[in-house]
């Protein structure tokens, strides 16, 4: 199972991760289209991103969310009907949507942001768990 993790104590809040993510998936420098969001809380930087917990899988009203062979929770864009139920139900607040997109988006632990982080504050953890 792959999960993106964030080291709060190292992060400087430069947001290079956000831009790398939105560029990679939506070809835009728009943090509102990033699947990782860095929040500044009195100069402590907290990352919002999917923990791959999978709570959204069974609640999906279109049966469009599944866990892939690497344990990563993914949205089947063909099946998704854009109800945004998963956005409202995500306990981590890490399922995102944009009004110009028909389906929500989330971190798929691809590692692009890890490479973009100048401080090595991000890491992809790989465990044997399948997340079931």
């Amino acid at each position, binding site marked *: 199972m792959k999960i993106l993790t964030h080291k709060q104590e190292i992060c400087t809040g430069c947001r290079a991760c956000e831009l790398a993510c939105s560029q990679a998936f939506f070809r835009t420098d728009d943090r509102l289209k990033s699947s990782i969001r860095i929040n500044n809380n009195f100069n402590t930087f907290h990352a919002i991103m999917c923990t791959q917990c999978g709570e959204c899988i*069974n609640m*999906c*009203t279109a049966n469009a969310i599944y866990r892939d062979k690497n344990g990563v929770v993914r949205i089947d864009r063909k099946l998704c*009907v*854009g109800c*945004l*139920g998963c*956005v*409202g*139900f995500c306990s981590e607040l890490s399922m995102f949507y944009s009004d110009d997109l028909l389906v929500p988006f989330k971190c798929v632990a691809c590692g692009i942001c890890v490479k973009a982080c100048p401080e090595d504050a991000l890491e992809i953890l790989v465990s044997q768990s399948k997340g079931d």
Partner: protein
Amino acid sequence: MGKILKQIRYTPAKIERGYSNKSLYINVGDLRIEEKEVTDFMKEKFVGGKGFDLWYLWNAVTPETRWDSPENEIVMSVGPLGGITQYSGAGKTLVCAISPLTGIPIDSNAGGYFGPLLKFAGWDALELQGKAEKDLIIFIDGNEGLISIEEGEEYPEDSHLLAEELTTRFAGSEEDKVHVSVVSSGSAAKHVLMGMLNFSFYDPRRKTVRFKQAARGGLGTIMRDKRIKALVVKFKGIKPNLNNPADIATLNRIGVKYHKEMHDLDEKQNGMRKIGTANTILVMNKYDLLPTRNFQTGGDPDAVKVSPEVFITQYLTQGLHDGCWYGCTMSCAKAADHFKLLTGPYAGQCVTVDGPEYECVAGLGSNLGIFDPQAILEQNFYCDTYGIDLISYATTVAFIMECYQRGQISQEDMGGLDLCFGNAAASLELLHQMSRGEGFGPLAGLGIRRLKKEFVERFGADPRLLEDIGMENKGLEYSEYLHKESLAQQGGFALTNKGPQHDEAWLIFMDMVNNQIPTFEDKAYALFYYPMFRTWFGLCGLCKLPWNDIVPADNYKTETPAKVPEHVQNYVDIFGAVTGKIIDKDELIRQSERVYNFQRVFNLRMGSGLRKHDKAPYRSLGPVTAEEYLSRQERYDKQLRELQGLDPEAMSLDEKIAATRAWREKQFELLTDAVYKRRGWTNDGVPKPEHLKEIGMDLPMLQEVVEKHL
């Protein structure tokens, strides 16, 4: 596959701001298929959904039309908000026709995918007229632009088999089954007047067809009388922008806000995601509202045997999405999977039972004196697959059981069935008889209004007692709430357009428990506002449940918590976001008023709709029998003292019952006066011409009807 009788190609209309602006007319008698324009007039006056249904129905029938006349129509429409995926409960199809039970327009609504798929196939509404000679299947393919009518004799009648077979056939593959929805009835619908319609949706997790029902008023009976075995619609490609909304950002924002509420609050409030509407069984029992043994009392110690906990832990699959349209995170369409049937033609088979909803447990359970969850679910399954409205069935059987209990009819009169309270086996056998059209089934299937006459004429029953205990109004059986102590709800049931169904008004807690509407004027306002507000759901294609079965955490701080003001504003906003027509909460009510008054005048046109037709059976208002009075003697004696200044100690039981009755019947009349006044009607229940003008419904066709009654 049956012989194709007619097939046409069409170009599916593009949806603009919630409307396809086209409706489909099919005459199954002469196989005419026509396209009609949805006009601005229709949208302005009737909005959609039930409004469109009633408009088309009015134009199809005459005052002489009866339920089985060829010109009677079944009209279906989903409304402009129907099919949105962002807000919960937006997949309701509204269905209207002249009812076999009441002789006036019935409106009934169902979840399931049919209505939204029909709209996305290009049709805001569907009219079905005429009568075929052989069973037909009507298929609409919204992707191919194809409508076909074929012979359907070879298909099974019972819905769980029929819908599964048709879904498999028209989908063509497992992954396409979710794009197919079937409307069907069942084998009993041609033998009873309380036949209902199942609306299907395919559940890809369970890999089975599921159902919601447009149950009230005999719609399934009409469909089978027209020899329509099933309607099938197919549309692939559901996306959140298919309604081409004016403002998708607002739709998204409000939808997400609501989903968050559901996520954060449902478990603390009603637990709809775990048990659905049956969450209220023990609450109703506690407050003396759970109808027991034909509404004689409001609860029973055995109710714990059919508690929500029993169904959650022993029957209902937990943790799966159970919405009847996409995006409904209330997810209340629960199901009992792998349920083994013990009786009937499918005995021994394991099936998925859709339910039980509250009405099912209260109706097929406590109101029949049955407190066995297995028996309740088995009756639930057979009502559904046979195409029987379980509310009319339950209330009718409760009436029959009391007639039997009180010696008004005998076991022999019931063809040997021992329909005593608590006898689940006899009730199940009655259902099977309805399916086969044998024994006591067809007689019982006439419903209470006709049975009262039959029992008097055939078996010498006491007509006065039967009038008092037969829980029907306008010919429709009451739904399952004991409401003797809530005057407002007595009106909420009887002062309705279609008959006593709680979708117009449910005021018991406001009135009886919380005492928020103490005066006649307060009650009259509630019986104006809530029926209008709830009517609006039916105009738009929405479900009522997401309005107040969960409320914002700070709702109690608002001035009018019962209205759930934040959710009302949600509806105002999403109406504007979809249609581009900006309304406020007052215009929302006005939209409903137009249709509500249209329906009232429609009733007048069909020979009903007057004060005498709004009369309630006395069982609805107070204790009919000595046992009933004695079971709550302390309460009734106290009322005699405090409300009437009488001394119950100095009165005989008969005197106390008579005094209670006189007072309660008077209260109901005073309530009726106040409600009519508030609704802009005459004292005989006729909408006043000036009121019709004020709400923008001074249409000549309505004035002509109204003038005859002034």
